[in-house]
């Protein structure tokens, strides 16, 4: 009897938590399907009386959020591919190759993890401005390449690659780059999936840097465009909710699809040395 009550309590608490976690997202979707003004009638309805996609049509026709979505995809894909290449090379070298200073350089990188990224922002902006990269997609994607956590992730994973496998390839005369490209990269596939989704989501969700570096509205990413919209359209609740859904839904779906990799990466990233 006591046990049954305990089971009931645990599940009641879990359900309450789940409702609290999901309600804002469900309401966002629901309100995005309401007619203009419907959500701010009194008492405010939770569900649309007659669902409409009109707000979404507005986003793509009257406003240029379609363009912003394309910008977001482009910048996130560029950043992700760059990070995968750079971090897999470096992470593999730290894990499997022997060279003087290896541990010291790696410790230095780990120490740099505690530096808050915004500290670098002002000079970085001035540097990219001199290089003519303000208001470009490349400029928006670039800072992601300085990510350190990915090097750490790949190194953790690459350490499990057996030395014998690499040595056998060396004996057969394969060069170090061929080994990296044809043997190591395929073995790294699971951790590359993890790093890929983590980087894509972080770049997609980022706000400060694209806000600073993208000056022209036609280059805005979704979060920047959305933050701009709330200035002029804060009265159009239903329209703003459609914009929020457009911004959130792609990453939420991506997460649901690949959550195994994502959650693995998060727990792997926290493993201490």
């Amino acid at each position: 009897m006591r046990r049954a009550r305990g089971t009931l309590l645990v599940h009641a608490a879990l359900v309450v938590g789940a409702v609290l976690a999901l309600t804002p997202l469900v309401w966002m979707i629901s309100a995005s399907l309401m007619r203009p003004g419907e959500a701010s009638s009194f008492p405010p309805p939770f569900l649309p009386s007659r669902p409409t996609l009109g707000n979404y049509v507005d986003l793509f026709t009257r406003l240029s959020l379609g363009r912003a979505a394309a910008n977001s995809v482009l910048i996130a894909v560029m950043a992700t591919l760059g990070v995968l290449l750079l971090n897999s090379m470096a992470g593999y070298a730290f894990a499997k190759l022997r060279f003087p200073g290896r541990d010291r350089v790696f410790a230095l990188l780990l120490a740099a993890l505690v530096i808050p990224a915004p500290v670098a922002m002002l000079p970085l902006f001035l540097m990219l401005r001199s290089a003519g990269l303000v208001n470009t997609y490349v400029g928006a994607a670039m800072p992601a390449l300085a990510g350190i956590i990915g090097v750490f992730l790949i190194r953790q994973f690459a350490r499990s690659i057996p030395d014998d496998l690499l040595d056998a390839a060396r004996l057969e005369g394969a060069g170090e780059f061929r080994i990296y490209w044809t043997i190591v990269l395929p073995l790294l596939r699971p951790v590359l999936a993890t790093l890929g989704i983590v980087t894509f989501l972080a770049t997609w969700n980022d706000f400060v840097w694209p806000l600073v570096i993208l000056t022209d509205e036609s280059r805005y990413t979704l979060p920047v465009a959305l933050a701009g919209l709330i200035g002029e359209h804060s009265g159009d609740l239903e329209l703003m909710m459609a914009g929020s859904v457009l911004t959130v839904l792609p990453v939420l779906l991506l997460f649901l699809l690949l959550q195994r990799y994502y959650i693995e990466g998060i727990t792997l990233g926290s493993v201490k040395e």
Partner: protein
Amino acid sequence: MAGEKPRPGGMPHEIQAAWLLLLPGLAAISILFLVPIGAAFLLSLTDFDIYTLGDFANMRFIGLKNYGALLRDPLLWKAMRNTALFLFVGGPLTLGVALAAALLLNSRVARWKGLFRTIFFAPYVTTLVAVAVVFRYLYHPRFGLIGQALGWFGIAPIDWLGDPRWAMPAIILLAVWKNFGYATILLVAGLQSIPESLYEAARIDGAGSAQLFRKITMPLLAPTFLFLGVITTIGYFQFFAEPYVMTDGGKPLNATLSVGLLMYKNGFRWWSMGYAASIAFVLFIVVLALTAVQFWIQKRGEA
């Protein structure tokens, strides 16, 4: 390196390959992160402003004058107070909710664990700007869902984001909602790594469940909490998008102005980049000090 077996292929060859593989990554980290950090300090010693932006020759070194002015700037102290509130109230609240959720998920009787875990984690992957927009409406004094729900308990409507006393709590609540799922995942992993035999042995010795929690669970979660504490400190100290989107940049009466927002406004809206760089460095030093304190507490706990 001593004592490792020599490998075929030759050491010099391996060293060369290693540095070539590292070169692009280390170059990116240096040019895009480490050099700008150093440059930020130099920048903070100059009077870089909008005129300098047009012609770098207008820049002068002014020593520590920016820091002097900054420490006398009431806006800095206001922003510091808000940021500290966000960190010291929002941080423990986030981790507390996460610990409760993790214990529930780890309970032996709980079912559908995977589903609940996914649901708790979903807010964490959402775009901060978008959910800040959503919460802006949820907090609406008349039509907002949160006011409605509180009304069922007889609580009078609160102008969450318009009232200087309630704006920070409102923003903190959003942060807890968005971030607790992340800490939950790590705490569940930490709980699962505690061997069941430890609990059994203690139970045989007659320990109650409160004692088990205090003497086994919490100490063995300490490394996880240290990691979460450091991550949360670094992340929460930079809070920026919430006031930018929800309170139009720090309203009401700067009650939600953050250090990150103050830096952004000085640097990128008014182009006082020298002054903004000194704000960035103060932020850096405070985060560094808070991180060091957490490592120190952890060390002392082990001794």
